[in-house]
């Protein structure tokens, strides 16, 4: 038995931790792009801000987009509720609220992540320090995940945490793809040009998949395979299919544990059906942008249905 508020706290704690890590990765990919200097890097930062879903908020604070401002806004601006600093604060507040549901290890890794990052992000990060700060974010969130996996009982607490993680991750991958979907359309690509290559690698890098892509598709870097990898590949831990496999499984455990089924279970299954046994070409032919928008909307509705079903509020 657990409180609805606790389920909500766990769900958001893990969404925020996931978001911190994803934001660090997005910044990393943005920095790489700007270093290659093949095109206006400000355009690149605009698309990074879009992928993070914070472009509109950014433009309220700044007149135009520059790399240093974008990085600062995404890392440590408290006016940006999705900045790494903001989400680490929120994750830790949620962790304090659900302290009784966490093991000592899971709590302490979260608390230490907060202690380290709030001190590291107290001032604007110098260019030269950026790589080590991004590494620290990935490392600290990784430690939370490790402590969580190594010590938590596989019960409802675990299920709500995992559902939060994967709803957030799926949303993130879908947004990255949606911002860059035009690069993946056959009509506008100049297959094999160096610019395309850089852009494609950047997409893969922003989900930490530039190495694993090679293991699956070998040296054949092309947009169809990239879309296949990030949308349909069931073994790629940030693909939409993988995330929704996990969400469905965790909802399934809750269904068994509580002996009750909700709308959320049907919605999850519907989403999974759009990702299972599909051919990527059919999705691209049917309109990739449309598909992704549709996915983002359903994914977020699923989150709301879960909140209702389990009395988060």
């Amino acid at each position, binding site marked *: *038995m*657990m*409180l*609805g*508020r606790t*389920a909500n706290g766990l769900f958001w704690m893990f969404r925020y931790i996931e978001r911190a890590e994803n934001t660090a990765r997005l910044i990393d990919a943005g920095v790489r792009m700007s270093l290659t200097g093949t095109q206006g890097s400000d355009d690149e930062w605009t698309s990074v801000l879009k992928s993070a879903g914070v472009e509109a908020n950014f433009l309220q604070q700044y007149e135009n987009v520059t790399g240093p401002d974008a990085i600062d806004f995404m890392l440590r601006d408290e006016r940006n509720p999705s900045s790494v600093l903001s989400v680490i604060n929120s994750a830790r*507040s949620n962790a*304090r*609220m659900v*302290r*009784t549901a966490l093991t*000592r290890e899971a*709590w*302490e890794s979260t*608390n*230490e992540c907060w*202690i380290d990052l709030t001190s590291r992000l107290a001032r604007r990060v110098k260019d030269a320090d950026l790589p080590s700060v991004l590494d620290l974010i990935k490392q600290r969130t990784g430690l939370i995940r490790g402590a969580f996996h190594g010590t938590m009982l596989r019960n*409802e607490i675990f299920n709500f945490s995992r559902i939060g993680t994967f709803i957030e991750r799926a949303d993130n991958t879908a947004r990255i793809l949606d911002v860059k979907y035009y690069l993946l359309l056959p009509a506008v690509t100049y297959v094999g040009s160096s610019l395309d290559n850089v852009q494609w690698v950047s997409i893969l890098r922003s989900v930490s998949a530039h190495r694993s892509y090679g293991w699956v598709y070998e040296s054949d870097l092309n947009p169809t395979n990239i879309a296949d990898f990030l949308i349909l590949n069931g073994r790629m831990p940030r693909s939409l299919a993988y995330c929704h496999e996990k969400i469905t499984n965790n909802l399934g455990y*809750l269904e068994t544990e*509580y002996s*009750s089924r909700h709308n959320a279970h049907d919605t999850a299954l519907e989403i999974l059906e759009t990702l299972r046994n599909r051919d990527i070409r059919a999705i691209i032919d049917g309109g990739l942008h449309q598909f992704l928008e549709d996915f983002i909307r359903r994914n977020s509705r699923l989150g709301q249905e879960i909140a209702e079903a*389990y*009395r988060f509020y």
Partner: protein
Amino acid sequence: MPFDEMLDADNRPRGPYSEYMSWYGEQDHARLLTKSRDAEAIFRKTGITFAVYGKEEAAERIIPFDIVPRVISGREWRKLAQGIEQRVAALNAFLDDIYHKQEIIRAGRVPRHLIERNEAFLPEMIGMRPPGGVYTHIIGTDIVRTGQDEFYVLEDNARTPSGVSYMLENRETMMQMFPELFHRVRVRPVENYPMLLRQSLEASAPPGCADKPRVAVLTPGIYNSAYYEHAFLADQMGVELVEGPDLRVIGGRVAMRTTQGYKPIDVLYRRVDDDFLDPLTFRPESALGVAGIMDVYRAGNITIANAPGTGIADDKAIYSYMPEIVEFYTGRKPLLENVPTYRCSEPDTLKYVLDNLADLVVKEVHGSGGYGMLVGPTASKKEITAFAAKLKSRPGNYIAQPTLSLSTVPILVKKGVAPRHVDLRPFVLVAPNRIQIIPGGLTRVALKAGSLVVNSSQGGGTKDTWVLED
């Protein structure tokens, strides 16, 4: 010269400290200083913090922890424990009496106006008897020492005493850092407190409830200064930690919103003040409590710990009557003394207090946390004059006490150890027909040399408190 608990007049260790001192003699001072910093890191990592209201930049602080333990012999403890038990029994009998027959008032031992015009007196509790007859399930009795056998009760915390998590974490930290010490010195354990607390709360459940009562801790939330303790206790007891918005009255029971719907609660260990407990009965704007909980309580369907209205028992104006109260209900002289207390509401006394402000400690009747008080001997002339004006305008709002020469226990400093003033808060659990006192407690220590203010909000620290097996 204040009484030092570690060293006697000839600078030799007193009995209870002899084994500790022989260990200390073998230690490298630099290593102890490192350990002391390690301890701080442990507290920070664990998140044992408290919030300081009104101080944005330091929203969360840790209470400084000193690694030199405060040691109490078994003999000293037994004497203290008897006195505390007698006092706690009297407090419960007093509460039951003033909310029922008021015999103590009729006997002329406590003035009627002091009870009935007191903000801490809750008319809602008149004629209401809590399940098992227990009012104060948890009490923290503040004790100061001035000599070998001189102990005084400074205050009875009968509302929602805090600090027990420090008692437990201090011990945990000491055992982690100095395991070898605990082989050499036989210290009575405190770590079963959460289990005893849970058993004690369960034993106070409403008589009609199912075989295994459901207990929950009610917290105002993560921004409360004692939130760490609330989460810690719920976690250690293995019960739910709830907030006002999680609770609702359904079918005459207080129930909490779970992922599978509402489930009733039998015992609520609330860490929310009376005023905020029920917006229908007390402050209407309160979001920290549960609308209608007082009706459920009056119907006997939930235990609230501590019971509403217990604040009347630890009111500082009532405090001065404690010797009469103890004698009235137990039929015996108090085993533990009160600090002599001047009631400023009485004109002659007021005059005496005003004439002697420089030697007295003056406290607000309803104050706590060391705020709003005057410590005469350390105050400036200007502060004394300003305080005298406040005192004259509302004399009934103040009591005064002689400045006690609190005992000292050394703390670790850069060069060796140095004595600092301490007090002691043992924790007492009350169940129907049973009073348990945990052998130990929270020792608070004034870290500034000469200071008598031990409150954590005013620069105080804490120590592990050892009660020896002897």
